[in-house]
């Protein structure tokens, strides 16, 4: 299997994640879609690491995982704070700064 195959599924998953971010309203689901996009990028990193025959891509994918975990923790905490104040997890309801 050439790396192109893995890049193809990486692209498909990335685009699906982007669509989810654009069309979904629930902030938690949007977070999950962002995670999907990050995972797709990781797959591309690993595919390129295999193509080049060294481990640098795998190290980068590892760092991406760490940063994604930190991002999820802070993002979900913000989400809970918003939910506590507004009783809603929908991104449409958080519009205080709109006008």
């Amino acid at each position: 299997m050439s790396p192109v195959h893995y890049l193809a599924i990486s692209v498909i998953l990335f685009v699906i994640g982007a669509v989810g971010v654009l069309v979904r309203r629930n902030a938690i689901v949007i977070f999950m879609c962002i995670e999907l996009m990050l995972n797709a990028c990781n797959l591309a990193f690993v595919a390129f690491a295999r193509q080049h025959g060294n481990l640098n891509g795998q190290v980068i994918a590892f760092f991406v995982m760490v940063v994604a975990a930190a991002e999820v923790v802070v993002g979900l905490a913000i989400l809970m704070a918003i939910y506590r104040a507004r009783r809603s997890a929908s991104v449409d309801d958080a519009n205080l700064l709109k006008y």
Partner: protein
Amino acid sequence: MSGVLAVGGTNTDFVTEETIYWILFVISVGAALAMILVRRAVHCAIMLAVVMLCLATFYAMQGAPFLAFVQIIVYTGAVLMLFLFVLMLIGISSEDSIVETIKGQRLAAGLASIGLLVLLALVIGHAAIGPAAPPSADNGTNNLPGLSQLIFTTYVFPFEVTGALLITAAVGAMVLAHRERTSPRPTQRELAARRVATGHLAPDPSPGVYALHDAADRPALLPDGSTSPLSVSSALSPRAPDETPRFVPPEETLQITAEEAGREIEGAEQ
């Protein structure tokens, strides 16, 4: 599958890898599509777990056994559990509304995503991506030592920075999730005064006890007005045989007539 994991991508059996690849392709793309199509957030989380397990298998197939296990432990284990915890806090039945708040947003999102897909496909199609390098020890037994050597030599500064990032994220999450008390905590004296003021000193009667008597050794009333000895725990009478029996036999309890029971209910409701 186990063969793929065991040799860490050094297998030469291309048919096996291709078969696994296409099976996982269908599963992961289908699960990802289902993830953005189902309305309940919990189902989204389950679909995301399926995609992440597929990706872990992809890592294993490409000679990254360490990343495969980290993917399962960190993503499928920790991150998704965090998502589910927050879902439980916010409400398990939270559904997305299907009302479009911005006119034509779905159509625009679909067009933009098709454009993105075409763009990325063209980039990959036009790039001269060579075949994979022959599998080396880096993909097998040397995977973990090689990764750790890279992390602690070449990438030691990013590694320290991610450590700082994790600590900052943990502190930030605690600060954000902290709830400040808006009113002072009631003292024990205030709680006692509030209890006396309500006139209801004793705890609420246990289940099955007629509401006027709070004691656990009082039998419950049956619908026909008689008492039910079954409602009193048998442990109540033999517990202290020397003292006067606390258990009142059903025959000696006052037989409350229907009218009296009705008055008692009214009194309890007032």
